[in-house]
């Protein structure tokens, strides 16, 4: 059994509040073992913070008593982990083969044009982030995009403005 290290570091940095670090620390301390648990911890950390900034990566490194470079090495290896905060809504464009054959590249281009950003970028108003995903497994509905958890199937270029507006409207309403 490998146990986490007890550390005392300033548990807040810039925009990152103390409670979130406390929550993460509690999660790490409660694991049966930290052996082999780095990816699991990173998943949890990303769930708590929304992304994995340097401060969080270093915090995890100190807790596990491993070099920060090792943590960064893992974070940068996997596409699921992000070191940039994302917008309020994440739009995932499926880039799987089935969607590709049915024209997802056009949807992708149109979306980037509509929002004026590229993949893995966030709009200036902080509302949308575009992500490319590899197959979400809804090939029957190709081409598919996913806004947060909602899947839109058989999407056409013309549908996009309307879909985006629904989310813009939601933000205004709230």
């Amino acid at each position: 059994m490998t146990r986490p290290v007890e550390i005392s570091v300033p548990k807040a940095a810039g925009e990152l509040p103390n409670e979130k670090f406390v929550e993460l620390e509690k999660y790490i301390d409660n694991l049966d073992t930290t052996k082999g648990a780095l990816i699991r911890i990173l998943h949890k950390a990303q769930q708590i913070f929304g992304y994995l900034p340097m401060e969080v990566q270093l915090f995890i490194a100190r807790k596990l008593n491993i070099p920060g470079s090792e943590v960064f090495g893992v974070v940068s290896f996997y596409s699921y982990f992000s070191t940039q905060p994302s917008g309020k809504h994440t739009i995932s464009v499926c880039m799987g083969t089935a969607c590709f054959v049915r024209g997802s590249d056009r949807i992708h281009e149109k979306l980037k044009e509509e929002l004026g950003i590229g993949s893995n970028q966030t709009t200036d108003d902080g509302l949308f982030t575009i992500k490319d995903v590899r197959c979400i497994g809804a090939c029957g509905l190709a081409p598919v995009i996913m806004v947060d958890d909602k899947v839109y199937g058989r999407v056409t270029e013309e549908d996009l403005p309307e879909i985006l507006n629904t989310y813009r409207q939601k933000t205004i309403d709230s």
Partner: protein
Amino acid sequence: MTVYRTNILVCGGTGCVSSASLDVYNKFKKLITSAGYDKEVKIIKTGCFGFCEQGPIVKIEPDNVFYVKVNKKDAEEIVNEHIIKGRIVKRLLYKEPNSKRIIEKHQNMPFYKKQFRIALRNCGLINPEDIYEYIAVGGYEALGRVITKMNRDEIVDIIKKSGLRGRGGGGFPTGIKWEITKNNHSDKKYIICNADEGDPGAFMDRSILEGDPHNVLEAMAIGGYTIGADKGLIYIRAEYPLAIERLDIAIKQARELGLLGNNILGTDFNFDIEIKLGAGAFVCGEETALINSAEGKRGEPNYKPPYPAQEGLWGKPTCVNNVETFANIPAIILNGYEWFSSIGTEKSKGTKVFALAGKINNVGLVEVPMGTTFREIIYDIGGGIQGNRKFKAVQTGGPSGGVITEENLDTPIDYDSLSSIGSMMGSGGMIVMDDTTCMVDVAKFYLEFTQDESCGRCTPCRIGTKRMFEILTKITDGKGTKEDLKNLEQLSYMIKDGSLCGLGQTAPNPVLSTMKFFKDEYLQHVVNKVCPTGRCKGLAKYKIDPEKCVGCTACAKVCPVECISGKLKETHVIDQNRCIKCGACFEACRFNAVIKPK
């Protein structure tokens, strides 16, 4: 519970009842009882078989023999010949109308099921969140029999004789994998389920885990018992939240009923399963990379040997099998290796699940016996090409595979036949393409994928796939030369030879395969600077044929840049300066008036 050796299924559907199937049912009951077989043979009234025209229908299981137009007198003959003496009554078998060929096995009947479902047998039938429903269909019986009545060598023997091969793509015999891991002595061993379904466009494993998670858990426990592991891991993509949730529920339920944990079913066998999440890396489907990732590290592959069966997770002997492979195991244990090996081709036994997608009418999952042809899958099951367009190619094996063209549509699908025509079985993605799909563009798509997913460990793969992607982009932009084609081919062989793992070794396959079968299309791109399908925007020039245009305005309506002008019922014209060559007008036109550049 009484175990019956044979079931006689008599159709009780409306059609058959009207042709007196109830009399046949009663006759069977009487005959079996008076012959003293009522403890061994069960007579079941079933729902409709969907073949009322030939009713009454009687099916004998597990022999899977299908009799048609059975009357009371025939029932006597079936009992005397088939049930007592084990001889099939040929006279009552279904005859194919055209060829007069006699068809014995139910699944061979043409009207009927091209599909036979073993791995998917419970999907869509039981509630995946209710362990009792899984138990009701015979779940955990195989595990029970194995751990109470069989020794480990017997199980290895059954799996070996069944002919089951790895369904993740490699096709390595599962029984041998188990045997090797079993024979490596160690204080600790692991069994891992590879649910890192990375081929974009494939979702067989996801469907199995979402529809029948206990099937996989049970099989892992059987595997664990066989190889001597008390710990199993399921390595699953984080992109499959629903599958993860259902696995989680299934594991909890199995623990509650003591089907996972210590002293399973009162034996001294202990086994538990843990879920490990991936984090988005295609290379983690490779078993050594998967093991590194399961240890929380970067998912880079290792040099083999040592194989995982020798030194795997935490340096201990480890057996890695794919989800679909596992999903076959309980059925093999319960029905016997003879049953399983009777399905399929000489060297590929059983069935294979394919995710059928792309330009096909019936997108979905199909499970067919090995040896089924592409034509049967695409036309009989898949319902043909969307919009009645012309079939061009079908890709199997995803980014590691290749295309199959018209001339090979009648190839019986198995591991070896696919390799021999330059593709591979792969995990089961099957993408159908029609005449609007550009093959150079498809190759570019796959290379974009692999250059992005290359883990970067080996230079040929890391840099080579990038260069290949650049050359393909150059060609689709209309700037390619003949020299580029030569370089592409040369690079392909260098990457294949110089890479450590399967990702690099197979990454050039889509290029090599499309270059082989569609050489002309490549040449058109580089020599004539045209893309025959009009997909490659850098090359396309669309025109409207004034002879054929009826002025329906369909093209003008779909044009995203509004560069098509013309009044209703008058010939339309494309403004070439504003045209972005998206091809939308071509697809919209019902009169074949939009001409793609030739």
